[in-house]
């Protein structure tokens, strides 16, 4: 038996449960009690495509240093699911802990000699205390939360105050929950005292940070960004975007005098109709969005081509999941990049934004609504299941009161009246963005016919080759304009001059931050760049060219961002090395550290030589 892991404010707890057993809220109570102690956490649900019965996990990363990615490994496994017992036990780090329900004796072969086992007869205690089977199940969860918090040194008052907040307005539920909590705590102090060396110490490292899901942040960002029409079709993991938009609108967008809604939400019959509604609304001057995932993006392809070619604003939130096909519907990936960048038949290119967390999801949601109208084209916000469906600790949301929506180039009745020349596809300002008119603007001027077929600068149908090419070239120039408008990359220079660089984006960010820190501690200096948008700003290509070699870490098999970089930046493929992670679980700091360190070792026999 190796020495048991001793750690304060820095460990990983994983709960293995059965889906639908009521464990989710108890596990969240555990996680929030650590936050309430002032210690940062990152929690992630790993759940099946199922309503009841299949295995589900909840992982809590406790990090006083504030690392919010997955670390990798498990220090304490709370094994509540017999179906997954063997794998769960096997996944514990040597010297780690196994907490389990010891009501029924298990043969020694079911355990490992190199871990510390903490047994508690949960079922027996519940059967003794409760008669109702449902109560037995639900309070079992609260009892283990009680025991765990006691073992880790989290005060009863911390958990109690959270329970009190949770059941505000349902006070009759307080007593039974307190009772269960204390059954757990009392058992732990009587029988398990001193067994667990993973401790939580009160701190003040959480600050004023908030804890929210990316999909919720998008819904709220769409309210702030002025979306008034939403159309969607239910699909995991994007569904809660529309639900969040609806919930926030009901609080924030109802006319106080009439009770009428300043928003319209349509649950469409499929994803094709959802994007059709968005395009119709965008054409007619309302800010509109849809939220979907890979399969929905596949279905919407024809419409994306229309919106690109006819130049209609639309915002699409792609909460990516594991593909291809139905793939891994409840697991995370970043595997729709090429599908979105070049969506639809013919020559197309689309604007993509890559938020790193819920806070940036909020910002980019509002930003995307501006960009869509400014550029008159679909804007894709590329979130994923990890950001979208997990609560993340992040900086508070901010909104500049002076901010005005950028409605883009809309020719008004007054402008038409003043005799301005209106050509729907005419580049008057040299930025390749034409003016548009909204239906119903002027009795005799500014009407035009929108179509997906080729036409001239004045929107007149034309099959002339030169006219078609003229328009396609302008669309390319418009993409150059987009380059100047989209969020720039974020570059982290290493503490010393580095020969190598690493590129990442989206939900990889927190694991990368921790990995970079660990690399630096080993004397391995790499510069890092987080891509935030496509088309790539010049800075992105400059970063690649400024390093001997760059690694690109992405959560897909084929290195899709690498392909996009090579293609759009005319970069020698040998300069960019792919580090793919695509098993459906969020990427970990340990994985990145090992992969980058190994490759640096291959590039340079003396590891320290990576730094100059």
């Amino acid at each position, binding site marked *: 038996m190796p020495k048991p892991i001793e750690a304060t404010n820095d460990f990983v707890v994983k709960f293995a449960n059965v889906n639908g057993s009521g464990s989710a809220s108890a596990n969240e109570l555990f996680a929030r009690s650590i936050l309430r102690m002032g210690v940062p956490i990152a929690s992630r649900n790993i759940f099946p495509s199922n309503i009841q019965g299949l295995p589900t996990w909840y992982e809590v990363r406790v990090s006083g240093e504030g690392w919010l990615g997955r670390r990798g490994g498990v220090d304490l496994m709370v094994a509540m699911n017999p179906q997954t017992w063997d794998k769960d036990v096997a996944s514990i780090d040597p010297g780690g802990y196994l907490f389990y329900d010891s009501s029924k004796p298990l043969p020694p072969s079911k355990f490992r000699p190199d871990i510390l086992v903490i047994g508690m007869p949960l079922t027996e205690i519940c059967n003794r205390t409760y008669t109702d089977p449902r109560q037995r199940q639900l309070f079992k969860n609260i009892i283990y939360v009680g025991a765990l918090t006691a073992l880790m040194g989290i005060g009863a008052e911390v958990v109690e105050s959270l329970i009190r907040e949770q059941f505000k307005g349902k006070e009759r539920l307080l007593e039974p929950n307190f009772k269960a909590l204390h059954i757990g705590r009392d058992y732990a102090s009587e029988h398990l005292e001193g067994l667990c060396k993973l401790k939580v110490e009160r701190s003040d490292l959480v600050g004023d940070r908030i804890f929210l899901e990316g999909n919720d942040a998008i819904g709220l960002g769409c309210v702030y960004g002025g979306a008034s029409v939403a159309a969607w079709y239910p699909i995991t993991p994007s569904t809660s975007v529309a639900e969040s938009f609806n919930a926030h609108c009901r609080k924030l967008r109802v006319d106080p005098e009439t009770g009428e809604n300043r928003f319209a939400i349509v649950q469409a*019959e499929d994803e094709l109709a959802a994007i059709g509604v968005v395009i119709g609304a965008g054409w007619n001057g309302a800010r*509109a969005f849809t939220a979907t995932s890979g399969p929905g993006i596949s279905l919407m392809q024809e419409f994306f081509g229309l919106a690109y070619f006819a130049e209609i604003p639309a915002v699409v939130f792609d909460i990516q999941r594991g593909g291809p096909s139905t793939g891994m519907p409840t697991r995370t990936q970043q595997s729709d990049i090429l599908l979105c960048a070049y969506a639809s038949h013919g020559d197309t290119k689309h604007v993509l934004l890559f938020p790193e967390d819920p806070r940036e999801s909020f910002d980019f949601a509002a930003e995307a609504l501006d960009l869509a109208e400014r550029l008159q084209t679909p804007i894709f916000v590329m979130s994923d299941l990890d950001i979208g469906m997990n609560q993340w600790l992040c900086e508070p*949301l901010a909104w500049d009161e002076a901010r005005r929506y950028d409605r883009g180039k809309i020719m008004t009745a007054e402008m038409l009246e003043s005799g301005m020349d209106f050509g729907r596809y005419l580049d008057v300002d040299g930025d390749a963005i034409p003016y548009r008119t909204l239906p119903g603007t002027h009795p005799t001027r500014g009407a035009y016919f929108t179509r997906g077929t080729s036409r001239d600068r004045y929107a007149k149908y034309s099959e002339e080759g030169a006219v078609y090419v003229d328009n396609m070239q302008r669309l390319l120039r418009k993409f150059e304009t987009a380059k100047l408008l989209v969020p720039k990359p974020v570059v982290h220079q290493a503490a010393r001059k580095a020969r190598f660089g690493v590129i990442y984006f989206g939900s990889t960010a927190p694991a990368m931050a921790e990995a970079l820190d660990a690399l630096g501690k080993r004397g391995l200096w790499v510069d890092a760049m987080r891509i935030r948008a496509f088309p790539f700003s010049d800075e992105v290509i400059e970063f690649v060219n400024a390093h001997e070699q760059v690694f690109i870490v992405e959560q897909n098999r084929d290195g899709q961002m690498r392909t996009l970089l090579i293609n759009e930046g005319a970069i020698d493929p040998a300069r960019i090395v792919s580090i793919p992670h695509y098993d459906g679980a969020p990427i970990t700091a340990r994985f990145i550290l090992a992969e980058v360190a190994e490759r640096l070792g291959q590039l340079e026999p003396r590891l320290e030589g990576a730094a100059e």
Partner: protein
Amino acid sequence: MSYLAKPKFRHKGLEQNALGFTHRDYEGAISTLCAGCGHDSISAALIQACFELDIEPHRVAKLSGIGCSSKTPDYLLGQSHGFNSVHGRMPSVLTGANLANRELIYLGISGDGDSASIGIGQFVHAVRRGVNMMYVCENNGVYGLTKGQFSATADTGSKSKAGGINADSPIDLVSLALIAGATFVARSFSGDKTQLVPLLKAGIAHKGAAVIDVVSPCIAFNNHAGSTKSFDFVRAHNEAVNRLDFLEGREAIKLDQAPGTVEDVVQHDGSVIRLHKIRDDYDPRDRVKAMDYLQQRHAAGEMVTGLLYLDPEPRDLHAGLNTVKAPLNRLDERALCPGAAALTALNDEYRAG
């Protein structure tokens, strides 16, 4: 060619409507369809209907999918915005447009390929949502642009120009519209302008999902013996249950026909649909009986035309969604953005510690 402009010349003596517009103000580009195409008659009827209703042309938005029928919005209402979208998806685009600005008149123009095949789902769902629109299906039972394949509305046993016999059952858009909950359902014939124009007027004025199936023979590919969508066949089997006049509220309402054969249906906005009954026992307000009658006559080989169903008190999508009266596309930051103070309160709700 549709990009040819029409001559601007207009005769001084042209009739004007209440707004001072002439027919010419409701016309569009020159049609590129075949000479004699039924669709051009429907365009002419639409122009007539808009002229007679004194609609400001620019307050109409005309949307379509893909196909011969879907080209026709270009041939009418040249001062209106038009949107030739993608095949079978006009209903969703129109729904979005309508949500953005409830004040315009929405004209959805489609064909049988667009509505009964590739777009049958969108057609049904736009209707069941009660989108305030007039949805016209220019129905010829054939794919014209791809040269003569059967469409889903072709009758069983009908013969294609190339000689093939259709073995599949037809989709009846009128029955489909009734089942889906359309609040105004009619069928007419492109060759019968006196029946069609008042139906179009009533359909435009209807404040809900109005569906008009207009049988419109394809002169090039579906006007031969053995076709059930030819001019001759339709004329021989057309069974009109009523004819109507559409009267706007401000017009004097007087009956000058024998009681019992004429009935006025007053709509929510005060306009009146005056039914001249051809079949005394046909009540267009009874949806279930209408469906029953349609099936009976279809079994007898007849095609029922006229106003088939009307709910004078329709509820549209905006009513269902309880949206504000002002068009959503006109709301600004003050109406849409909750502001920084509200966000501070939200941050407190989301506070972690």
